[in-house]
């Protein structure tokens, strides 16, 4: 979603207001608003929020609303309840599920009777289109007033709680971090009381997981990572069409929106802007906190963290142009699968791609161990190894060792030693930690890569593997979360290699069975996925591959990339086409890239908007209508 600040004018003076002077006063012109809406639609966003001062005071608010509906947006209006009649009428005229209103209620302090009556009157007319929002600026606020207000007017059973954050000039009233724990406990007691009545809490930004108990996090259905990483740009687009990280950090950086690629790119630039402050944290204890270190929490609100720092204000005027170019394509290296082609084929690949070719990996040739793959022809492997045309790596990821490691260990080690001394192979991909330890101790020169089958997704895991492995291929199911990949990379400390065309639906528990059957050859690999994908064809869109034209989204977090699909890329021509597309970032479609069931079955074309959205979606596919709708639009329907 994105926030449009329609106007900075406001008819209330809240003590904690952190919108304040961070935005130059003024109103967004109607044509500018429409341009923004088009730009957001093009960026694949389906929901916008209208903010401001008081958005409904915008002269042409009904027109803005109509423009949004024409472009198929879900609209959420943040209002303080004192709405002019025409704006209220425009909202009521809109279809109920398309337009909702968040009424920001000033609980606790003495509203004048007149103000409270008008807000109640607006709430009464809005009914279940609206829900109550509360800003906590001190402990001990009577939160139950919000529930009673909502109950009296039949509003939606959602209470949005937010913390009042400090502006960088500290002129507003904000919740001091030392009271976070009191507020955390108050929210726990409040949630307990309203849960039996069906009310649920929704959280604004700046909360940190350590002020809540695990019980509470489970009850509100959030993990500590979700509660901890809430501070991030949405972004907020100001009336003068510049995007800011958020209101409290308004003066930190303003990025002119016109001319920038997509909303996601604007968000990335804003994120880079605040990434440097992430290490501070709102509490002094943050620096020793495992949650911050493991990436589950990014230290709470940056504005609150900056309170602890001595700052000389930034007056750097960002040159308009350089902020809008897409970050330069850093040269990334590729690890590509061995297919049984003569050495000349690999020589042509080597000189075509030059430094981009990191290594060619081939399965270890020990009978009985297998690499979780059916045996592959390897007539040319021996002389390719001797010719040293291209750096080689060996794949030892016996997902399911037929015998315990104790008996197989020696044979594997001795084979690796032979490959290392004779053929100069100095890289191996392994999927078992103890095996890797033994290789590391006996063959220290070997660079070890942790296979994606280790399902490494958690920062504390990565930290454990830090001294055993040199490169880490994380679990493919987090391939689409740049934040989590960044957190994993920091805690692993070394290189991250992303497997981009592995189409397997990552947490599918059939995967081990699938590899086991392939490894021991006693089953047909397709048997498992086909059954599931025929029942729900739209699931193929949830595959975890990243197309060449979307690689720039992963560039900030990836050091190397890896191509899978030794079986599906058997044909040399197809193999070269796919490799060239990935290295030179030219568009391809899933059924062309091979690798994993999603593409094996049949043609599959993915609309660009869907691929973009999948990067920033909340990944709760089970009930996500987005992929279902996208599936119906693509050509997949008739292909199956």
């Amino acid at each position: 979603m994105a926030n449009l600040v329609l106007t900075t004018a406001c008819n209330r003076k809240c003590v904690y207001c952190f919108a304040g002077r961070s935005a130059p006063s003024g109103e967004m012109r109607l044509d500018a608003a429409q341009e923004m809406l088009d730009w957001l639609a093009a960026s694949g966003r389906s929901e916008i929020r209208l903010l401001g001062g008081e958005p409904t005071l915008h002269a042409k608010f009904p027109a803005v609303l109509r423009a949004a509906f024409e472009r198929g947006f879900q609209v959420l209006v943040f209002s303080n309840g004192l709405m002019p009649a025409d704006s209220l009428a425009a909202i009521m005229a809109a279809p109920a599920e398309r337009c909702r209103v968040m009424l920001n209620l000033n609980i606790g302090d003495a509203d004048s009777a007149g103000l409270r009556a008008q807000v109640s009157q607006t709430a009464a007319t809005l009914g279940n289109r609206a829900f109550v929002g509360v800003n906590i600026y001190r402990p001990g606020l009577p939160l139950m007033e919000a529930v009673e207000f909502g109950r009296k007017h039949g509003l939606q059973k959602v209470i949005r709680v937010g913390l009042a954050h400090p502006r960088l000039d500290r002129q507003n009233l904000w919740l001091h971090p030392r009271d976070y724990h009191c507020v955390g406990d108050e929210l726990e007691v409040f949630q307990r009381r309203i849960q039996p009545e069906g009310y649920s809490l929704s959280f604004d930004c700046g909360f940190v997981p350590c002020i809540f108990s695990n019980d509470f996090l489970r009850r509100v259905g959030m993990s500590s990572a979700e509660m901890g990483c809430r501070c991030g740009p949405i972004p907020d687009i100001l009336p003068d069409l510049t995007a800011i990280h958020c209101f409290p950090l308004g003066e930190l950086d303003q990025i002119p929106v016109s001319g920038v690629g997509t909303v996601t790119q604007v968000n990335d630039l804003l994120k880079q802007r605040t990434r440097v402050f992430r290490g501070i944290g709102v509490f002094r204890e943050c620096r020793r906190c495992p949650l911050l270190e493991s990436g589950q929490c990014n230290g709470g609100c940056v504005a609150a963290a900056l309170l602890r720092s001595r700052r000389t204000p930034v007056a750097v005027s960002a040159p308009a142009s350089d902020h809008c170019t897409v970050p330069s394509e850093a040269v990334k290296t590729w690890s590509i699968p061995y297919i049984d082609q003569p050495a000349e084929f690999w020589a042509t690949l080597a000189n075509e791609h030059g430094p981009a070719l990191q290594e060619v990996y081939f399965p270890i040739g020990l009978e009985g161990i297998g690499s979780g793959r059916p045996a592959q022809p390897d007539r040319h492997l021996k002389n390719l190894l001797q010719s040293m045309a291209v750096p080689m790596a060996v794949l030892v990821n016996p997902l399911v060792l037929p015998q315990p490691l104790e008996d197989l260990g020696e044979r594997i080690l001795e084979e690796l030693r032979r490959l290392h001394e004779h053929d100069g192979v100095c890289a191996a991909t392994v999927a078992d930690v103890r095996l890797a330890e033994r290789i590391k101790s006996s063959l220290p020169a070997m660079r070890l890569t942790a296979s994606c089958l280790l399902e490494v997704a958690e920062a504390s895991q990565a930290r454990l593997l830090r001294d055993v492995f040199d490169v880490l291929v994380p679990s493919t199911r987090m391939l689409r979360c740049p934040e989590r990949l960044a957190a994993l990379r920091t805690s692993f400390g070394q290189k991250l290699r992303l497997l981009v065309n592995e189409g397997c639906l990552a947490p599918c528990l059939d995967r081990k069975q699938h590899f086991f059957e392939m490894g021991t050859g006693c089953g047909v690999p397709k048997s498992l996925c086909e059954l599931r994908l025929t029942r729900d064809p739209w699931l193929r869109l949830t595959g975890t591959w990243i197309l060449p034209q979307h690689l720039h989204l992963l560039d900030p977090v990836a050091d190397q990339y890896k191509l899978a699909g030794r079986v599906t890329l058997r044909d040399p021509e197809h193999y070269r086409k796919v490799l060239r597309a990935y290295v030179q970032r030219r568009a391809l479609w899933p059924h062309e890239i091979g690798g994993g069931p999603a593409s094996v079955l049949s043609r599959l074309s993915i609309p660009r908007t869907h691929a973009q959205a999948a990067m920033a979606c909340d990944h709760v596919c089970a009930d996500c209508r987005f992929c279902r709708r996208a599936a119906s639009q693509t050509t997949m329907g008739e292909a199956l």
Partner: protein
Amino acid sequence: MSAERCEAETYRAARGVSWVAQGNGILVVDEVARGSVLLAYPAAAVWDMACRGRDRAHIAASLRWIMGNEHKVVGDVVRECLNSWILDGLLEPADPARRVT
């Protein structure tokens, strides 16, 4: 710059640089170049005193007591820290008018 003028010079954090005491060191954040560095002691003490407007002589004298008996190398620790920060653009000499006695 002549020695004593350089000694008497005071400093301040450059524009866009913020710093926070973190653990037993200081985290210095450059918002413009988007980099950050965690200073350990004794560099942290030099940074702290420099940012509070102490001049080089006072910093060197205090550093002697801060490092206790390892004070033989204090002279060049201060010089090396200050110069490297100035080169990196983290620190800039305050205008002489704001000298803190």
